[in-house]
């Protein structure tokens, strides 16, 4: 059947079972929007306030559902506004398709109105990108883009389409998508045997979980594995939820804001088993002083991660879930060393160095704990970036994959609200809470209008310290309290702001009101903003000073 490029694009989205997209119209995508209107019974389009919101929403949708997120923007400024969102998805390996219009073929390269080389701009922040100059190649390109976005280690793919290509006609024949297989060809018997050898030698094993375990849905395998080798478990920020936060083996975050237990365990273990984790600098801090006594066994889907940041002694390359299954099969006939002394040591650390907070006033950590309690740990939590993000990671015990939606690799302030919108749209039956800082919220609070428009019952909890808290904390600890540009005591009335957008606003100033306000917010069933006037001096602890070893953190203000 002869269809226009715009129709072919949408047919190809339908082939991929896409029923939700986030985007913003403009000149170069007029044909696409014209066709979208025609297909509105099959694809729901969500219009944010800003293209960055569309990208973060598509990202949150993808992270929380495991499906591909799709966003659309017009050429030039529209495409540029996607850039932060695409980079955010890239750093956290999120499958995202970004579709941009561009000026017609004949105007390309002439500095035409709203022309920008988004193909060139996004090359280093996409897994791959395309410019489609021929309508005959459009369908194949879209199919390839979806495959690349999901295959192996996922990532964002951008498709740039000049306007006339969306108007030209071509023959379209429907195809079923190529199945996305789990990567297993490099999970060799030798790799498994070597892993077994390393495991059998170890008396002090430690499992370090990352975002790859979430992507691969390897939770069940992980738990079985941990129970056989009797190892404590630590997690990167991206790994939260892959392993139950309530499990007795779980020690919490590792790295810059890791628990002292996790970090001491990393320093004292004799075998570190990294599962879908990439030894980021936020975990490792100083590579020369990281896990100095350990052999490293690295299980990851991306061969380039092996030996990239940390030299490994053994590895299994492939889908983490299948790799663990194969390993478990091979482990069935093996005996492993008794680790009870090690576990006892770890438990002692856990008792000596629990996560604590004892500042006065309205404590942000307490608020997060109450959110956890009042949602029975079942909420989907998105965060902004800064202290709010780390308190959320530390005090909400994530127990299922895809429940903690946070910008780990790029650390994008302004991510959380857009992500919450996409998360709520992808999970209409779940409660979605965006835990925010006042600075981050202010960056993209325009998306409140979107949440109201689509009647999304998102709760935004602003941990308002009237500061760019994490920056202020660094200046406090490492820059002799020179608070350069980090105290932003703006006169914004967040309750009135919420109301102006058509949302509900609450002010929360006293610890004893936390439960009541949260309960009311949960009952409201519409977008709610809770402005929490927290103690402005509250800090995130533990914290590893720059260049320090991870087992030597600053534990609190009195240290």
């Amino acid at each position, binding site marked *: 059947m002869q269809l226009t490029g715009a129709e072919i694009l949408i047919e190809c989205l339908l082939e991929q079972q896409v029923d939700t997209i986030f985007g913003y119209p403009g000149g170069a995508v007029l044909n696409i929007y014209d066709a979208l209107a025609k297909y509105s019974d099959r694809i729901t389009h969500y219009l944010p306030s800003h293209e960055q919101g569309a990208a973060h929403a598509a990202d949150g949708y993808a992270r929380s559902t495991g499906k591909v997120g799709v966003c659309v923007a017009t050429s030039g400024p529209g495409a540029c506004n996607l850039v932060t969102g695409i980079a955010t998805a890239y750093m956290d390996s999120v499958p995202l398709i970004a579709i941009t219009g561009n000026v017609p073929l004949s105007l390309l390269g002439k500095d035409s109105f709203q022309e920008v080389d988004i193909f060139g701009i996004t090359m280093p922040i996409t897994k791959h990108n395309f410019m489609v100059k021929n309508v005959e190649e459009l369908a194949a390109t879209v199919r390839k883009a979806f495959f690349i976005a999901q295959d192996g280690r996922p990532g964002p793919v951008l498709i740039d389409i000049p306007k006339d290509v969306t108007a030209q006609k071509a023959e379209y024949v429907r195809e079923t998508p190529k199945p996305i297989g789990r990567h297993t060809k490099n999970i060799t018997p030798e790799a498994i045997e070597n892993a077994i050898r390393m495991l059998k030698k170890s008396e002090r094993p430690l499992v370090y979980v990352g975002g790859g375990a979430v992507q691969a849905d390897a939770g069940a395998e992980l738990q079985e594995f941990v129970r056989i080798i009797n190892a404590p478990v630590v997690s990167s920020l991206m790994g939260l939820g892959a392993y139950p936060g309530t499990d007795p083996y779980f020690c919490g975050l590792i790295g810059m804001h890791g628990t002292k237990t996790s970090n001491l365990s990393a320093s004292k273990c004799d075998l570190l088993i990294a599962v879908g984790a990439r030894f980021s600098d936020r975990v490792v801090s100083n590579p020369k002083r990281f896990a100095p006594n350990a052999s490293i066994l690295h299980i990851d889907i991306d061969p380039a991660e092996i*030996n990239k940041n940390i030299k490994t002694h053994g590895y299994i390359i492939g889908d983490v879930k299948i790799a663990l299954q194969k390993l478990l099969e091979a482990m069935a006939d093996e005996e492993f060393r008794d680790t009870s002394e090690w576990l006892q040591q770890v438990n002692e650390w856990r008792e000596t160095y629990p996560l604590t907070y004892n500042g006065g006033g309205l404590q942000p950590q307490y608020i997060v704990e109450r959110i956890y309690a009042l949602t029975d740990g079942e909420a989907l939590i998105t965060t902004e970036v800064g202290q709010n993000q780390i308190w959320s990671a530390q005090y909400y015990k994530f127990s299922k994959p895809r429940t903690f939606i946070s910008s780990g690799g790029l650390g994008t302030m302004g991510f959380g609200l857009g992500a919450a919108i996409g998360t709520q749209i992808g999970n209409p039956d779940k409660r979605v809470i965006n835990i925010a800082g006042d600075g981050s919220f202010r960056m993209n609070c325009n998306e409140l209008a979107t949440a109201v428009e689509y009647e999304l019952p998102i709760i935004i909890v602003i941990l308002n310290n009237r500061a760019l808290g994490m920056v202020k904390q660094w200046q406090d600890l490492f820059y002799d309290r020179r608070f350069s540009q980090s105290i932003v005591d703006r006169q914004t009335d967040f309750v009135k702001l919420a109301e102006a957008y058509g949302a509900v606003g609450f002010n929360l100033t006293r610890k004893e009101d936390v439960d009541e306000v949260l309960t009311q917010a949960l009952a409201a069933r519409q977008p709610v903003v809770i402005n929490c006037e927290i103690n402005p001096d509250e800090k995130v602890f533990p914290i590893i000073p720059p260049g320090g070893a991870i087992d030597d953190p600053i534990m609190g203000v009195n240290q």
Partner: protein
Amino acid sequence: MKRYVISVLVDNHSGVLSRVAGLFSRRGYNIDSISVGETQDPTVSRMTIVAHVDDAILEQIIKQLDKLVDVLKVAVLPAETSVYRELVLIKVKAEDHTRATVSDIIKVFRAKIVDIAPKSMTVEITGDQPKIKALIDLLEPHGILEVVRAGLIGLHRGDQNILTQEDV
């Protein structure tokens, strides 16, 4: 640090050169030269990249290249079992009283004179880099006006080729 010659087969798409070059600059891998051209199959181009790096960086270069969707095959061409060649054009000062000496040097290197002007001549030389360096060193005292290098290229010796070489 060692010199490695890396051969890469890539889809002949627009943008592939900047993708590869971008990868090297973004990740801070220094390259000595890069050369690209079509292969016997017009849909496939071959790049030859020369880099002075240590083993850990080489491993990363290969793996990161391998991740690019447009990259079909990456191989390191080992010095012992490969032929390396580079083409270089050199414009050197040559006036009446020096032309004969310069010509003699060029003859010894089996290089070719491709252009002669009253005050200079242009020399074409092909070979591996040590040979080219030796010629340049000898021409230097006469006054080199311009040098342009095509970048090193290479192939496996014998019946082996890039596709039969095992993945690293």
